[in-house]
Every structure is written in C-alpha cells, then in structure tokens.
C-alpha cells in the first residue's frame, strides 16, 4: 500500500464515521457536531493563510461575521440560502484581498496588529449600524433552506447539509494546497525572497492567500446564520478569531487535517472538562501551553513524532553525504 492508499482509506473511514455517528443522537450532540464542522471550515481557511502561506491573521471571526450577516440579510429578504452563501464567499474573498494589501508591506506581529484592528472595526460596524445589522440585538429568525423539496429544518437534516458543505470545502482546500498554487503558498512561507527570484509573483500569491482563506471564513459564516438562527456582534469579536487561531495551531498549522482536529479539541475539550467547575479554563490553558512547548506543530506534529519512533524511516546517510559527492 502506498501513502496515497493510506490517505484514501483514512478519508473514507472518517467520512463513514461522520455519516453514521450522528444517527440517533440528541439535539445537543448534533448541535456540537454541526458547529464543529462549521468551525473546521473557518479554521481550514486560516490554515491556508497562516499554516500554508505563513501570513498571520487575527481576523477570521470577522469574516465569519461578514458571511453570517450577509447570508442573514439575503435569506431574511426572501432569497434562497444559496445566494447568501455565494454572496458571503464572494464578498469575503474581495475584502480578504484588500486586507492582504497591508501584508505586502508589514509582516509578523505588525501584520497581527493590522488584522486585529480590522476585526475590531468589523465588530464595531456590526454593533453600531443598527439600521442594517440590528446593532446589539442582532438578527433573528433566519430560515433553514430547502433543496429540491428536501427540508434541512430538523437538526439531523441540517447536520447532513453542513456535512455536504464541509466535504465540498475540504475537497476544494485539498485541491488548492496540492496544486502548484499550494507549492507557491509554501514557498512564500519558507522564503519569500527566494520564491520571488524563481518567478513566483509573491504579491499576487500573498493577496490570494488572504482572499481564499477569508472566503472559507465567509462560507462558515453562511452556515452559522441558519444553524443558530440568531446572530449578534459578540459572536464575531476578537476572542473568536483567537479561538480559530487556537484551532489551527493546536491541530497543526500547515497540515491538511490539522484544523479539523484542532476545532474538535477547542470545541470539545471545554465540554469534557466541565466537571472541573471553575478550573476548566486554567486546565485548558495549561494543556495548550504544554502542547506548544512540546510540539509547536500541534497534535499532528505529536502524531508524526510517535510514528517515527514506532517506524524509523530509512535514513539516507546524510552525514556521510556520499551519494551526492559526484
């Protein structure tokens, strides 16, 4: 079996689990699973921007917010959800592209501050422009869509609807990161000057990394409107961008399954730790610190370390460098 076969087998098993596990579950479990899928999509986008292309962004929740509000306004006006979804992704793509411009001039912590400020601006607009966004009261009553006469109104049906979107998003993500674009994103992360000297248009690739990553955020936001059927500015504040960042980093930035794993941990761990009462945040924070110290490449990184200990790779004799002596 080649690596490719292992990957396909893993994807098939994972998909089967995603299809069968929710059957017969209570509404609460269905809600948690659905929001995990939704956050996985948002984290996938940030994984592209940050994990693959190396551009720090602390604004992913604001793109979810833009997507959620656009979808809410469009569906509340009586149009089908699909139009809201397309508009959400299109608009966040364009805004993400614009947010990418500062990244052409500043890097690292300066870029973090720029994106942080952007998140704050979006939050303030959502809160203050009552006429459009309902201000602090937010928007309520967004309908769940029908597709060819099939309703997604019940929680299990809605879960499967989101699962389909998740699979589409993961497929698109997989396609992009494995295309020559994906290689260019990684090259941008690893050594932008060298990449430019090899013909990579690093300006364009930087902007695309922001635009595509943001569009995934917008797509996730378009799910949130009909999922919770109530949106307010507080759901898209800076803290939620940090939460999505945590998902990417905990899972493993730059790995395909990283953000999905990270989203599961970030959403589920607080639930699991609830029995510890007031201490759960502290325990949670401590676990994250330990993880980052032990494995900066997240849980996937730990998995890889373990795999290598079980099955040491056939090391070429690098130190001797025999083979490359011509």
């Amino acid at each position, binding site marked *: 079996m080649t690596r490719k076969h292992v990957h396909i087998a893993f994807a098939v098993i994972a998909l089967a689990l995603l299809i069968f596990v929710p059957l017969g579950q209570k509404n609460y479990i269905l809600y948690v699973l659905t929001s995990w899928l939704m956050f996985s999509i948002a984290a996938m986008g940030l994984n592209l921007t940050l994990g693959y292309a190396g551009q720090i962004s602390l604004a992913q929740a604001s793109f979810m917010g833009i997507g959620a509000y656009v979808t809410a306004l469009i569906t509340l006006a009586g149009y089908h959800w699909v139009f809201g979804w397309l508009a959400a992704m299109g608009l966040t793509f364009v805004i993400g592209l614009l947010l990418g411009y500062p990244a052409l001039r500043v890097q690292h912590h300066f870029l973090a501050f720029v994106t942080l400020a952007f998140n704050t601006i979006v939050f303030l607009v959502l809160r203050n422009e009552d006429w459009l966004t309902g201000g602090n009261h937010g928007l309520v009553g967004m309908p769940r869509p029908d597709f060819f006469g099939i309703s997604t109104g019940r929680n299990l049906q809605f879960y499967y609807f989101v699962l389909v979107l998740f699979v589409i998003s993961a497929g698109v993500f997989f396609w992009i990161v494995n295309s020559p674009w994906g*290689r260019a994103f990684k090259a941008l992360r690893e050594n932008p000057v060298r990449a430019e000297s090899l013909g990579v248009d690093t300006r364009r690739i930087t902007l695309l990394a922001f635009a595509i990553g943001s569009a995934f955020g917008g797509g996730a936001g378009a799910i949130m409107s009909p999922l919770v059927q109530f949106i307010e500015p507080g759901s898209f504040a800076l803290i939620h961008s940090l939460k999505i960042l945590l998902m990417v980093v905990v899972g493993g930035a730059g790995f395909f399954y990283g953000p999905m794993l990270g989203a599961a941990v970030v959403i589920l761990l607080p639930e699991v730790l609830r029995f510890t009462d007031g201490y759960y945040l502290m325990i949670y924070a401590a676990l994250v610190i330990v993880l980052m110290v032990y494995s900066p490449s997240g849980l996937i990184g730990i998995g890889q370390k373990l795999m290598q200990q079980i099955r040491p790779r056939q090391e070429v004799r690098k130190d001797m*460098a025999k083979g*490359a002596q011509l």
Partner: protein
Amino acid sequence: MTDTVLSVRGISKSFGGIQAVRDVSFDVQKGEVLGLIGPNGSGKSTLFNCVLGQLRPDSGQVTINDHKVANMRASHLNKLGVGRTFQQLSVFPQMSVLDNIILAGQEHKGSMASRLFGPSDAGLTRAADQMIAFFRLEHLRDEMAGSLSYGQQKLVDAAMAFMAGPSLVLLDEPAGGVNLTMLGSLKDRLETYNREHGTTFVVIEHNMEFVMSLCTRIIVLAEGEIIAEGAPEEIRANQQVIDAYLGG
C-alpha cells in the same frame, strides 16, 4: 541581434557614507563564464543585486537580453530567463527536494489559472527528475530539503537556478562553505551545464582555485572598483590583484 547577454554601464551604489560600488562597467557574451572576485566587502554582492534589480543603483544602467532591468521585479526578471542564487543558502526547508525543484520551474508553465486547475506537478516531474539526476541527488529526491547537509542544500539551491532553462545564471558564492569533494563535483556540474546548454554564467567566488579553473574570464573588484580584468592566467600573474588580496 548581438551576442551580449548582459551589459553593465557605469553602476554606482553607496550606502550612507560607504561607496560599495563605483562606476562599474562590463559586458558578458553568450556562453561565457565570467568570474567576479575580490576581497570581502569589495562590493560583489551589491553589484549583483543592482544587476538583478534587487537594489536600485544610484546611477548607471543594466541591460539583460536587450531589456533594461531598472525597477524590474525579481519574478519578472526570472521570467526573462535570468536564474540566480543568493550568497546565503536559500532552499525551502520544509518542502521535499522534488518540490523545491518543481517550484523553480512551475511559474514558467501556463497561466495562473492553469496552475490551479492543471496537474499538481505542473507537468514538471520528469524535467525535475532529470535536473535532480543531473546534480546526482536522486537518493534525496523525497527528503525535506532542510534535512540535507549544507553541501547538498547548496546543490539543490543551484539546481533551482537552472530549472527554468535560463539564458543567464548569476551565482553568488556557490562554493562557500562547501567541502572539497563537493566542490569538485559542483564545478564539474557547472562546466557540464555550460557546455551542454550554452548558458551564460556570472560567478562570484571567494575560492580562487574554483574561479580560476571554472571561468573563462575574470573581473577583480576592490573597494567597489574594477582593478583588473582578463583570462585566469593573466589575473593570477597580476601584481595589483596579488596586492589587493594579500594586502586587503
């Protein structure tokens, strides 16, 4: 049509009070292997970066394949057929050797859109494997570039400069920090490439033996100025050069 691939006219560049390059002019003909030598700090890298549009010279003009390169972006210059390496080792450590080499060619294939919707290797696996074989790195093909020894990474770095089939290649200290055996093989590969493809080279190098045996013509820089120019034998015998090296 002239046979002049690179023409440098009156380039000067200073950083604050330091005049790094002073009124330098030279031409490079097609197929030539030009060596650029000089003591540390004599302005070689600065001159390179002016030639490649990475730095903006205070005055002077650079023409490559009849294109003026002033203010041209490095990616654009690369598409005009100019490959280069940097003095610092510059590979993509978290990508496999194969991916490093494919990246070095992919931007020359098709359009932005075709690179998204086309095959994931941009149809370059065969060409990349040939380049990897040329530099005798086959056994390292699927290793992460960052896990290779310094000398092996230098070879990957050089291989990337050739992947797009450039007409002019500028190498900044390709032999720097490379052990003796590796040095011989690097020289052999560069010579072979030049012979087989007629590619023009400009090579900055500290290692005198390496330059003397590889290059067809040598320019010597000292304190930003050309102090000598000629065939390797002439340079070796030039008293001014000996003084600059031993005295400097």
